[in-house]
């Protein structure tokens, strides 16, 4: 049941359309406005993060499975692309898509193994995946170059540096648009509804006849495909790969931070988060240099988001806006059944250990 009145809904639609148009214009106009190559590389970095965060959100946002290990998939995409160019001699962009296809196929067994477990175990598995790949790619130096790095030939040798950045800026923007459209399509589909049911209560949705395992696996594989494309495009742009940076739990968690900060239930949540965190990280690097303080900053921000804003900034901001502009509007906010139950429950004392009687140990 929706209680939105007709004009409210219409106004919301216009506001949303205007916001999207402004967002597109800003993204497309950025290379023209940013006159020095440094700003352009910052923009590419943020778009790359936005692609990874949006790709992550296929799993994290729809099914609620939080993976700290998506760096494993982007790293595989990057190394796959690089190795196909250097060893197999494929043209750069053919290599990109072949590598992404390989990672997508590989994601089926990986996902099938990882998605057998829920909650905490799934996070552990995702971390383990990154750590094992880091180990393998560092040790197998004859193929990957180890920690000396792997140099990827540039796809457009004729272009000079600024042009190279400009081209890749638009390539990343196009990839981001593809990921966003795919997320939007799933979000509106019956399939997406099933995924969200998994997020709310996996056992109940299985009982209702939703193919939960297949749904989770498809979401994971789609997510892996976009993540691998993002990683491969990064390899072609940056041109130098090091296992420590490619297979890093830190990168994976930064991406999770971005998606959570923006709001995992929203199409543009990960993009907003990527802009905020990406710009913040870059500013921190300028201001404080390359000290370990950026770890502290990331940690404080992640902890703050988890403690105080687990729904992200988009719901928080839109709540504020709704209060300012439409005081009598009765809108339905999407909350989980569990959260609703929580808020209806008596105020504290909260149970100190677990979710109550459901967890009784028999």
């Amino acid at each position: 049941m929706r209680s939105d009145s007709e004009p409210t809904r219409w106004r919301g639609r216009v506001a949303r359309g205007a916001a999207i148009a402004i967002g597109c214009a800003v993204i497309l106009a950025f290379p023209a406005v940013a006159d020095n190559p440094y700003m352009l590389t910052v923009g590419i970095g943020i778009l790359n993060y936005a692609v990874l965060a949006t790709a992550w959100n296929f799993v994290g946002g729809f099914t609620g499975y939080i993976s700290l290990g998506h760096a494993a998939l982007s790293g595989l995409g990057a190394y796959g692309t690089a190795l196909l160019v250097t060893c197999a001699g494929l043209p750069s962009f053919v290599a990109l898509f072949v590598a992404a296809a390989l990672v997508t196929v590989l994601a089926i067994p990986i996902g099938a193994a990882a998605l057998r477990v829920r909650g905490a175990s799934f996070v552990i598995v995702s971390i383990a995946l990154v750590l094992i790949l880091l180990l393998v790619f560092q040790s197998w130096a004859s193929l990957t170059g180890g920690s000396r790095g792997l140099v990827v030939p540039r796809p457009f040798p004729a272009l000079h540096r600024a042009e190279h950045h400009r081209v890749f800026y638009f390539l990343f923007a196009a990839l981001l648009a593809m990921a966003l459209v795919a997320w939007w399509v799933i979000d509106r589909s019956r399939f997406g509804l099933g995924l969200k049911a998994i997020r709310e209560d996996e056992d109940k949705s299985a009982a209702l006849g939703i193919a939960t395992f297949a749904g989770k696996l498809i979401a994971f594989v789609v997510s892996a495909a976009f993540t691998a494309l993002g990683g491969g495009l990064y390899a072609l742009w940056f041109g130098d790969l090091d296992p420590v940076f490619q297979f890093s739990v830190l990168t994976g968690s930064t991406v999770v931070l971005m998606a959570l900060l923006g709001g995992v239930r929203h199409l543009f949540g990960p993009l907003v988060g990527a802009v905020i965190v990406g710009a913040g990280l870059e500013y921190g690097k300028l201001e404080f240099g390359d000290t370990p303080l950026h770890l502290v900053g990331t940690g404080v921000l992640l902890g703050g988001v988890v403690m105080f804003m687990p729904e992200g900034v988009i719901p928080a901001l839109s709540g504020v806006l709704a209060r300012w502009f439409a005081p009598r509007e009765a809108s339905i906010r999407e909350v989980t059944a569990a959260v609703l139950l929580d808020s209806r429950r008596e105020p504290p004392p909260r149970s100190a250990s677990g979710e109550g009687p459901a967890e009784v140990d028999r």
Partner: protein
Amino acid sequence: MALVFQSLVLGVLLGGLYALLAAGLTLYFGVMRVVMIAHSAFLILAAYLAWYFHEVTELDPLLSLPITVPVFFAAGVAMQRLLLARLRPATRTMMSVLLTFSIALIIEGGLGYVFTGTQHRIQLGYSGTSLELFGARVAVVKLIAFALAAAALLALYLVMMKSRFGQALRATIQHPEAARLIGIQTERVAGYGFGLGLATAAIGGTALALDSTIYPSLHWRWIGPLMAIIVVGGLGSVPGTAIAAMVLGMLMSLLQIPLGTTWAQTVFYLALFATLAIRPQGFFGGRLAKRF
């Protein structure tokens, strides 16, 4: 043969430390259903404190234990009361992973900022000495570390099984609602359980500082094996994790002979994935593990 025996002994010594740390992780999981990613970061923090204590006072790093253990216990209680207990119960398992991960990042960054990223090592009078044990040469510091871990595990076992607090703690782990009904203040008990878990990290860190080189990002090398151990052992089962720690520690030590140190580490991850494929609730896992 001597080489095999030698690595078997080293594997047991390493497995003891793993078992102690995994017991801490199991405690957190038992009382709160949270996976504490920051456990190994606290381990490295304790190792740094032991090293710094030695640098400043020139005393034996073992003497830092009377300071670090209570401090870590208090930090654990504070962490449970102020942070983890305030997460929404519905999403606590997932969100606690992120929260403790953020704490690990803060500790790593803080250590790197205060003590710089360079490697440190404690030099003691007995650092170089070793003992002959049935033909195997074992460094004295490794023996001390193992003794420390074994003593701490034994103390933990006695507290859990013999004391009144231990009974309350086990009741809270087994059945929180019923524990509340018979008058156990489960929230307070859960806080103390968390403190105990963090105290194991303090002891383990001191033991670690005795015989290894420490640097801020070292905790990444520990978190993977520890996570693998608690999954293989079954989340929530202390004896299960202890057995898994011993078995995997010995396996890694043995595999180091043909494979070298780096590839031998993969045994933890292979065991992890094999466990998931064959028995997702863990090999010694209790009933708790099935839901996670």
